[in-house]
């Protein structure tokens, strides 16, 4: 029989980067070479991360398979497992299961323009798409990133985002940033790039990006907190994006990650889905046909 899917594999924390007061980026390497080789993932997939003696939590892989090197995950400290994870040090071991979930259809998006919309922690899963698209830039048309954060302090990968704004040609990514709280760095950036940086929530950026948004040949990818989806979807629908070319990654309570434990079940009697298995990436068509998806 195949291996026991409930059994986490060993991985070592090789590096920890403190991103914000509540978020850390962990770089992980499988202890066993074979496990590393067998681990093939797609942008948008997730892993179940175990802290020994505490438990497990689903966390998105936040780098692209096109990049070599350790696996990266970005974890916000919110509860038992994530707090315990934050206490660990480089060199410590964790458990990993996965990769799970369907991931983003990077192949299907080939040849299209892409519009990435991230809010807050949504940058974690979205970063895998962003990196992937940058690394295979020629496979996609126009590329746009809209990123909304509450404050400078809470912004993720801010150096990289600022770089994308300052030197748009380097990665050929049109990047736009919205922030809510006054801050000297972002304020200055806004003065310098009024076309790209705005104050407000992420949806204010659509106005800036509109000249480049061509819904008829564009795929949209959205990642953010549950409340963000409704507002972003409204903007996309207003612009006549095709429902099956709007992708988003959703979150539900998870335990098994493999379609058994039932916690992530969504939908009504005609549309039951498992977020861990049928998702976490869904299209707007799914949203229209599945009760309570967003």
């Amino acid at each position, binding site marked *: 029989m195949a291996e026991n899917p409930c059994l986490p594999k060993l991985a070592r924390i090789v590096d920890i980067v403190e991103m914000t007061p509540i978020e850390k980026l962990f770089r992980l390497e499988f202890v066993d070479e074979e496990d590393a080789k067998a681990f093939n993932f797609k942008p948008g997939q997730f892993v179940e991360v175990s802290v020994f*003696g*505490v*438990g497990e939590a689903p966390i998105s892989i936040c780098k692209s398979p096109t990049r070599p090197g350790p696996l990266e995950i970005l974890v916000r400290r919110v509860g*038992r497992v994530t*707090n*315990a994870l934050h*206490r660990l040090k480089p060199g410590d071991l964790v458990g990993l299961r996965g990769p799970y979930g369907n991931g983003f259809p990077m192949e299907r998006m080939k040849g299209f323009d892409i519009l990435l919309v991230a809010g807050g922690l949504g940058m974690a899963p979205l970063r895998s798409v962003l990196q992937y698209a940058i690394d295979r830039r020629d496979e996609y048309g126009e590329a746009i990133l809209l990123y909304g954060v509450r404050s400078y302090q809470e912004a993720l990968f801010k150096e990289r985002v600022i770089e994308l704004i300052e030197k748009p040609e380097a990665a050929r990514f049109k990047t736009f940033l919205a922030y809510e709280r006054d801050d000297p760095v972002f304020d200055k950036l806004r003065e310098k790039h009024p076309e790209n940086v705005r104050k407000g929530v992420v949806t204010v950026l659509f106005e800036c990006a509109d000249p480049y948004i061509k819904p008829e040949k564009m795929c949209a990818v959205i990642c953010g907190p549950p409340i963000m989806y409704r507002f972003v979807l409204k903007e996309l629908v207003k612009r006549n994006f095709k429902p099956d070319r709007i992708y988003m990654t959703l979150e539900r309570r998870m335990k098994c990650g493999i379609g058994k434990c039932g916690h992530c079940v969504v939908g009504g009697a005609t549309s039951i889905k498992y977020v861990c298995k049928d998702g976490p990436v869904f299209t707007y068509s799914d949203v229209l046909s599945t009760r309570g998806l967003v």
Partner: protein
Amino acid sequence: MAGKVRVGFYSLTGCAGDLLSILNIEDRLLEIFEKVELVEFVMASSNVKPGGVDIAFVEGSVTTEKDLKALKEIRAKCDRLVALGDCAVWGGVQASLTGLDPRELMKSVYGTEQNLYGFLGEHKPLSEVVKVDLELPGCPIEQEEFIKAFVSLLRGDLPEVKDYPVCIECKIREVPCLVVEKGEACLGPITVGGCKARCPYHGVPCIGCRGPIKDEANVAGELLMLMEKGWKPLDAINRMKLFAARYKDLAKLVGRG
């Protein structure tokens, strides 16, 4: 962590049954205490030693001025505060007197209307007075649950809290349901599990000693069920009041009469 975790055990108004049940974990008691620096273990006193503690375990309800003062002092000097047992979590059996005139109570027990003990007029759970980080229900607490929580706390985590009803444990142990089979007045559906359905397992209906499931217990539904089984509303309510008097929905039901 530098040095051992500093732990204190404190007792307010109650029977000290929860601390007793910790002392009763005889075979493992040493193992428990060797892991920590035991700052205090007071069965009944407000003689609070100086110096902070990392974890304070507090049993008993807030019933007197003395309790109130002691609890505030404990909260001020501890990092995490754990409420132990039904008195600390729900006010205890004494809280079922909620709503009665305190002077009448004094008179019936001590023969005088004078407030002899700085009685606050009601028996409050800790959470109505200070911030509580963890509640371990039960009358008394479950030793196994205490050990698990203790270990989690020592590691700096909070344990997983149980918020499923006793019925779940009946099903897990395949205990015939006393309501379904005999029409008995079982409070299992509204009561926090964790006792492994001890009473139904022995054929005795649950009296709710682990307290109602916070914000969840459907006491109106339970009342309806008991009435359908032939119980008089007042008897049914009194049964629920024993351990759930301070549960807001029950207080509302009682208020409605």
